[in-house]
């Protein structure tokens, strides 16, 4: 190992705690908080996955009686659609990549001893945790969980009497999301302040790893988007409980006037999607950052076009706020407005393509090491392309009106937002596990997990495109009796079998994760021969990250295969090299 240069000792903001409660429960340490977020997301993902499995069984055998669950009624199916989407979007895709890995590694990668506001950081996790408990509680109250979908369209979501689950269950759903927003905002505040103000000496913005850029821009998106969702949630709660009519027009239920009038359901859609579309990027940007990082490390090459990657992240973040209307082409909006949203949406294809070509450019002629994190990173690129390519189809109002309420849309967003982000999380888990736990994960199990997941998810979601194009509508619980869809039942059955196999593959991951924590091979401080700052410190990192020192940064984050260097990588805190690119 080369000698790394360190600055004078910095007094750490808070001393290392000794007791179990302060160390592992109400911890101020960003690393522990990161792990707490990660394990919260792990619990949430299995709840969400269980719901999806029950939905898949119900779709092919709607009259089957399931053990413990009994008969699944159509409204119960909608409840599962709602809770699967909500739990996955908020408590998995927003929680693990940003709250989990971002919390653990952002401060270390910029050479900081902790987040800027550790108490706020702790509060942000426990607020999120409370949000999750409230969300799960919705299952157990009278009427059960809501059935209005994760998008909560009014007036269905705004009237207590609009269906089972729209009573207390729906209130808890809104309150949970409001709590989640507050937690996410506290987290975003910390990420932004820490990135701007706590970088180590020499860690210029353009020397930051792309992971840090991604977490930073994601935090900005969260900061701008979650406030709007919170406002929509407050208005919805008022409509439901105080008799106001922000979102509810003059409607009758069972022939009775509800007492509301004049509200606009479209107002909800605008407010929701002003948050909802940036949320897609909140889920995927951290995975993009992780993927960029890993492709460079395991190709033993500098990332292709670092600056272009940074500007592409910024462009995607910016454009993400301009395109919410493409979720509303069905709402009867003016064709001129739809055209503007359509053009902007297709515009996002440009920075996305820049990123994709740069990833391919990084792989090209690299000395690729096919480790498990690399497999998942390449898998991410594959899924991002496959899921992304259907985006320009849906971005065109004329095609979207045909495809919008079919399986084509779930196929699109599951590939690009769901599974691609999950592959980012897996890649990051296999990559950083040695740093977090001091042991390596089992490589054979990891490879089995990869192939199960990669082939499995394609087997699930590719056929959904065909279902959609053949006209199978989404959200319905029972389509096996519909004559014109009979020919599609074998495909639906195939998807359900694929879901079983894919979920079985996830158990391999679960076993590997916990087995490796205790029995995995001991990891060295830098097992992947990577360059960023987390690999300069001990494994696992000490309480203040760098053992009383703060690194001084001299090099960019992706100095691999540097001509004339003694080894094929130069770490960020190594003595400065002449950049050859």
């Amino acid at each position, binding site marked *: 190992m080369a000698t790394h240069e360190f600055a004078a000792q910095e007094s750490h903001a808070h001393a290392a705690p000794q007791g179990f409660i302060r160390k592992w429960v109400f911890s101020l340490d960003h690393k522990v908080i990161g792990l707490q977020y990660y394990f919260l997301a792990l619990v949430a993902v299995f709840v969400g996955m269980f719901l999806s499995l029950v939905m898949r069984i119900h779709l092919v055998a709607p009259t089957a009686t399931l053990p413990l669950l009994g008969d699944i009624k159509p409204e119960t199916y909608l409840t599962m659609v709602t809770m699967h989407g909500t739990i996955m979007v908020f408590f998995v895709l927003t929680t693990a990549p940003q709250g989990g890995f971002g919390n653990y590694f952002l401060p270390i990668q910029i050479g900081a001893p902790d987040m800027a506001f550790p108490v706020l950081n702790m509060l942000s996790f426990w607020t999120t945790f409370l949000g999750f408990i409230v969300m799960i509680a919705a299952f157990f109250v009278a009427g059960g969980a809501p059935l209005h979908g994760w998008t909560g369209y009014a007036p269905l979501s705004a009237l207590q009497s609009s269906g089972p689950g729209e009573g207390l269950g729906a209130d808890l759903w809104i309150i949970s999301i409001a709590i989640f927003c507050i937690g996410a905002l506290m987290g975003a505040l910390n990420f932004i302040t820490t990135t701007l103000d*706590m970088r180590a*000496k*020499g860690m210029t913005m353009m020397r930051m790893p792309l992971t840090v850029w991604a977490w930073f821009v994601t935090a900005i998106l969260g*900061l701008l988007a979650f406030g709007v969702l919170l406002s929509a949630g407050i208005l919805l709660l008022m409509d439901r409980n105080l*008799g106001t009519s922000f979102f509810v027009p003059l409607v009758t239920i069972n022939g009775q006037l509800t007492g509301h*009038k*004049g*509200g606009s359901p479209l107002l909800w859609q*605008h407010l929701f999607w002003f948050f909802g579309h940036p949320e897609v990027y909140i889920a995927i940007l951290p995975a993009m950052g992780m993927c960029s990082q890993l492709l460079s490390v395991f190709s033993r090459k500098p990332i292709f076009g670092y600056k272009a990657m940074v500007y592409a992240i910024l462009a995607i973040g910016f454009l993400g706020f301009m395109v919410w209307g493409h979720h509303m082409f069905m709402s009867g909006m003016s064709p001129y407005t739809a055209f503007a949203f359509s053009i902007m949406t297709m515009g996002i294809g440009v920075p996305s393509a820049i990123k994709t070509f740069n990833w391919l450019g990084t792989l090209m002629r690299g000395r690729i090491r096919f480790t498990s994190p690399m497999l998942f990173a390449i898998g991410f690129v594959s899924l991002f392309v496959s899921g992304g390519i259907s985006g320009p189809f849906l971005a065109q109002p004329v095609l979207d009106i045909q495809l919008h309420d079919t399986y084509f849309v779930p196929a699109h967003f599951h590939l690009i937002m769901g599974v691609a982000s999950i592959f980012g999380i897996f890649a990051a888990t296999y990559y950083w596990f040695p740093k977090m736990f001091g042991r390596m994960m089992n490589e054979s199990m990891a490879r089995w997990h990869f192939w199960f997941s990669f082939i499995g998810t394609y087997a699930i979601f590719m056929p959904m495109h065909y279902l959609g194009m053949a006209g199978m509508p989404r959200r319905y619980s029972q389509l096996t009796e519909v004559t014109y869809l009979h020919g599609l039942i074998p495909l639906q059955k195939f998807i359900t079998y694929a879901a079983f196999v894919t979920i079985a593959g996830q158990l391999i991951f679960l076993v590997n994760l916990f087995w490796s924590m205790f029995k995995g091979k001991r990891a060295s401080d830098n097992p992947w021969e990577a360059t960023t700052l987390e690999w300069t410190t001990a494994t696992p990192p000490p309480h203040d990250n760098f053992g009383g020192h703060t690194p001084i940064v001299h090099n960019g984050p992706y100095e691999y295969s540097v001509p004339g260097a003694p080894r094929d990588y130069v770490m960020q805190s190594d003595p400065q090299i002449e950049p050859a690119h």
Partner: protein
Amino acid sequence: MGDDGAGPGLPDYATRLRRARLGLLVALTPVLMLFVSFTSAYVVRQGLPTLDPRTNALVRDWIPVALPKLLLINTGVLILSSVFMELARRQIKGQATHASATSAPGVSAGDQSGIPWLSMTLVLGLAFLFGQWAAWRQLAANGFYVATTPSSSFVYLLTGTHAVHLMGGVLALFVAGIASLLRRSVATRSIVVDVSAWYWHFMAALWIYILCLLEFAG
């Protein structure tokens, strides 16, 4: 290359103050977004026609609410409290600068003489909140409840959300007071008061915006 990294340095008074102010600036963004979002809902709702079930015709149902005059007095109280808050901020900043010039940072200067601007701000802040509550009572007495008309819904929504945020400011002032009682270092107190002051000024400006929106765009 962009700017240089900030560097580690010791977390001295200037660094802590800069970090706290930056944190506040970031924290105010979602508050701003919340009210931007409400404003957009306000404007949209104002222009919407609604179906009259008796005539089956589309009608405008936006009835402007006559705002209680008390709100003007409340506004005066909040502006005055903001002035007091600024005086409190300058007072303790002077003490902190003096303390860091004469002794090591982190040592309590113990100098708390002078006009108690902070306590006066707190009293005026509570008076404002009480005044807002009284204005709500007046609205209700005039027959405007939260669900009476779309405009009255927005009056309660905007004043209520602003009041909740101001309560956050009141809480911050309590924290500043407790920091003083616990004899925390003058630097720590100064930072708490500084960010509380900027938050307070923001709340005052936000209130003036809300009042103008309700009065002139209602």
